[in-house]
C-alpha cells in the first residue's frame, strides 16, 4: 500500500464520487448549512451596516457638548450663555470669523416611510454654515444650500431614499409651517444623511426655543485637545455638560444594533444545532451505506485512519459547499439592502446592510463547525467497522 496520504486521497475521492448515490440526503445537509450561514450573515450584515453608518459619521477632531446625562442630542439643552463660555475653551480652533463652533438644534418631525407607508420620526437639525462645513465629506449633490433666515431646508440622501415627499423642489408641511426643499446633501453614506437640515435661527423661533440650543460642536486641531476641553468644562460650574469627540459619541450609538449581531449568532447557532442533527443523520447513513466498501478497503490493507479521514472530509466538503452557497445567497439578497430603524436619538437611521470579508469568515467558521462535528462521530464508526463486514451477505 502507498503512503498514508495516497490512501486517504484514494478514500476521499471514492467517497466524493459516490455522493450522487446519496444525493437527497447530501443535498439536505448542504441546504441546511447554507440556511444557517445565510441567516447568520443577514444579521451580521445588518448590525455591520448600522454601526458603519454611525461609526463613519463622527470626526475625531470635533468635540460635541451635551447636557450631562442626556445621552442623546435629542434630550440635551444648552443655553446661549453656555455656548458663549464654550467659545473661550482652550483647544477650540479659531479662524478669521472667530472660534469654529456650531450650536445646533435637533427636533423631530414626521415623515412617511416608503416601505410601510407609516409615519416615522425624522430629525430636523438646525445648523448654520459653520456646522455644515464641520461635517466630514459633506457636499450638496443636487440643488443648493438653504438661505439663512428662510423656511428652506436641504435633505439627506438617505431620507430621499427611504421617505416619501422630500424630493428637490417639493414643499413640506410640519404643523402650520411650510418648508421648501432646495437641496440634497450627501455625507458619504453616514447617519447625517438620515437628517433634514435648516437654519438654526429659523428653527429657534418656529419651535419657541428662544435663544437656547441643544448641542454644540467645536472644531479642535487634534483629538489630544479633548482633555483640555474636558478640564475646562469640569472647572466651570456653569457648564453642567458632557463632552466627548463626535467620533466617540456616534461609536457608542453605533453599538445599539450590536444586539442584532448577538441575536443573529444565537439564532443561527440554535439553527446550526438542528442542521447538525440532520447532518449527523446524513453522515451516519453515508457510513452505513458504504460499510462494505470501507470494510473491503480495510481488508486489502487500507488503514482505519484513511476511513476516518475520508468520512470527515466528505462532511467538510458538503458543509463547505453549503456555506459557500449560503454566503452567495446572503450576499445577493442582503448586501446593500436599504433599511431604517429607530436609532439612539429616537429618530430613523437609514442604513444599508453591509457584507464584508470578515463576515464571510464567520459564516465559513459556522459551516465548517457543522461539517467537522457531523463528520467526526460517524468517522469513528467508519474507522471501527470490523473488516469481517466485507465478507458478509448483502442481506
Amino acid at each position, binding site marked *: 500500500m502507498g503512503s498514508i496520504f495516497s490512501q486517504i486521497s484514494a478514500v476521499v475521492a471514492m467517497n466524493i464520487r459516490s455522493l450522487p448515490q446519496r444525493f437527497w440526503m447530501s443535498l439536505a445537509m448542504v441546504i441546511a448549512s447554507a*440556511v444557517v450561514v445565510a441567516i447568520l450573515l443577514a444579521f451580521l450584515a445588518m448590525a455591520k451596516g448600522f454601526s458603519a453608518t454611525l461609526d463613519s459619521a463622527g470626526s475625531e477632531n470635533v468635540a460635541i457638548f451635551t447636557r450631562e446625562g*442626556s445621552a442623546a442630542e435629542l434630550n440635551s439643552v444648552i443655553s446661549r450663555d453656555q455656548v458663549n463660555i464654550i467659545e473661550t475653551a482652550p483647544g477650540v480652533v479659531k479662524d478669521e470669523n472667530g472660534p469654529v463652533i456650531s450650536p445646533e438644534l435637533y427636533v423631530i418631525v414626521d415623515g412617511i416611510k416608503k416601505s*410601510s407607508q407609516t409615519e416615522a*420620526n425624522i430629525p430636523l437639525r438646525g445648523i448654520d454654515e459653520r456646522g455644515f462645513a464641520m461635517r466630514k465629506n459633506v457636499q450638496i449633490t443636487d440643488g443648493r444650500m438653504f438661505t439663512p433666515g428662510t423656511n428652506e431646508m436641504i435633505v439627506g440622501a438617505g431620507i430621499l431614499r427611504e421617505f416619501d415627499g422630500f424630493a428637490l423642489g417639493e414643499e413640506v408641511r410640519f404643523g402650520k409651517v411650510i418648508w421648501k426643499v432646495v437641496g440634497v446633501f450627501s455625507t458619504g453614506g453616514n447617519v447625517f444623511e438620515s437628517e433634514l437640515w435648516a437654519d438654526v435661527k429659523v428653527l429657534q423661533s418656529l419651535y419657541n426655543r428662544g435663544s437656547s440650543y441643544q448641542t454644540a460642536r467645536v472644531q479642535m486641531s487634534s483629538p489630544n485637545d479633548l482633555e483640555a476641553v474636558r478640564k475646562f468644562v469640569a472647572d466651570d460650574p456653569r457648564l453642567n455638560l458632557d463632552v466627548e469627540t463626535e467620533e466617540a459619541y456616534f461609536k457608542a450609538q453605533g453599538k445599539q444594533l450590536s444586539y442584532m449581531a448577538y441575536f443573529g449568532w444565537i439564532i443561527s447557532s440554535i439553527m446550526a444545532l438542528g442542521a447538525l442533527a440532520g447532518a449527523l443523520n446524513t453522515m451516519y*447513513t453515508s457510513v452505513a451505506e458504504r460499510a462494505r466498501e470501507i470494510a473491503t478497503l480495510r481488508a486489502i490493507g487500507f488503514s482505519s485512519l484513511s476511513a476516518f479521514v475520508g468520512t470527515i472530509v466528505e462532511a467538510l466538503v458538503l458543509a463547505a459547499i453549503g456555506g459557500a452557497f449560503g454566503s452567495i445567497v446572503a450576499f445577493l439578497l442582503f448586501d446593500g439592502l436599504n433599511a431604517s*430603524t429607530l436609532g439612539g436619538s429616537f429618530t430613523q437611521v437609514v442604513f444599508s446592510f453591509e457584507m464584508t470579508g470578515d463576515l464571510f469568515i464567520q459564516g465559513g467558521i459556522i459551516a465548517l463547525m457543522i461539517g467537522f462535528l457531523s463528520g467526526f462521530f460517524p468517522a469513528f464508526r467508519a474507522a471501527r467497522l470490523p473488516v469481517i463486514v466485507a465478507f458478509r451477505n*448483502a442481506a
Partner: protein
Amino acid sequence: MSDIYLIFKNLTRKPLRLFLTCFAIMVAFLIFGVVTTLKDALNSGIELSADNRLVVVNSINFTQPLPYAYVNKVKAIEGVKDVVHMNWFGGYYQEPANQLVTMAVDPENYLKVYEEVVLSDAERDSWFRNQRGMLIGRAIADAYGWKVGDIIPMSSNIFSNREGGHTWEMEVSGIFDGRDEQFGTNFAVFHYKYFMETQTFGGDWVGWLTLTTDDPALNEQVAKTIDEEFANSEAQTDTSTEKAFNKAFIEQIGNIGLMIFGIVFTAFFTILLVVGNTMILAVRERTGEIATLKTLGFTAKRIFTMILAESMLLAFIGGLAGLGLAYMIVEGAKAFLAQFLPGLVLSDTVALQAVGFMALLGLVTGLVPAINAYKLNIVTAFSRR
C-alpha cells in the same frame, strides 16, 4: 400488540436517528415558540390597547408639545369621556444607562383612562394626596427592590430641577399591577403639577393627551372633531386610536414581522428538509418489510396510515419538546426581561399554532414515504433484492 405497537417499534428501531431527528424538530419549534413570543411581546401594546382610547399628539411629531389649554377643550368635545395629559420625563435612576419610563400625569384622570392599571384603594388615595408621590409598576419594584414609602431620587435626561441638578426626590406611593398578564408594568407615573412647578423650562404645556370615548363607534368622529378644532391653532393635532398609534411606533423599529417570518420560515424549511429526507430514507430501508406486510395481507391503506402516523408521532415528540423548552425559556427570561421587554408570555395562540405546524410537518414529511409505501409493488420489491 396493535398497529400502534408496530408504529412505535418502527419509530424506535434506530434510537440515534430518532434522537437526532427529534432534536432537529425540537430546535425548529424552540425557535418558533421563542421568536413568536418575542414578537407578541413587542406587539403587546397593540394587542392590549383599549378600543375606545385615542391619542392626541402634535401633528409635527409626538415629541412636540401641546398647549395645556387643549386639555379642557378636548374634554368638552362630545363623545369624550375622560382625558388625561401626559409628559415624557426622560427618567433614569442614578446612571443615564438605567433608563426608566417615567411620565408626569394628572393622577385622577390617569387612573380613569387607564383602567388596566390596578392598585389598592389605599395606595391610590395616598398617591392622590402626596404631591411628590409616584406610582411604580411591579416590574420596576421587582428590579430595584423598591417598596411603598421609599424615597427615590429620580433623574431626568431632559429636564433640570429649579433647585439645581436633574434629580427629583419622589416617594413610592403605590405599586401597580396589570389587569392582564401581558400588560407591561415597567414604567412609573407622578404628579404633573409637581413636575411643572419644579422644572426650569416653565410654561403651560403638555406632551400629549390620551382620552377615552363613550363608545368605540364614536372614535372616528371624535378624532375628526379634535383635529378640526385645532386646525387653525398654533399647534395642530393628530388624533389616532391608541392601537394605530402603537402600531406606527412599533413599525418605526423596522419590519419586525418580516424578520420574524424569515427566521421561522427558514427554520421550518430546513427542518422539513432534514426530517423529510430522513423519513423517506427510513421507509426506503424498510422496503422488504413493507412488501412482507403486504404479502401477509396488510392493505396498502393500512400501511399508508401507519407511516403517516409514524411521521406525525415524530413531529409531535420533537415539536412538543421544543414547545416545552420554549415555554421554560420564556418563563425563565420573563422576570429577567420584565423591565425592558414586558409582556413576555407564550400565549395559547402561539401554542396552538405550534401544534398546527406539528401536524403539518408530520403530514408533509410522511406523505411522500407513505405514498411510496402505498404504491409499493410486492413483486418488484422482492425482485429488487
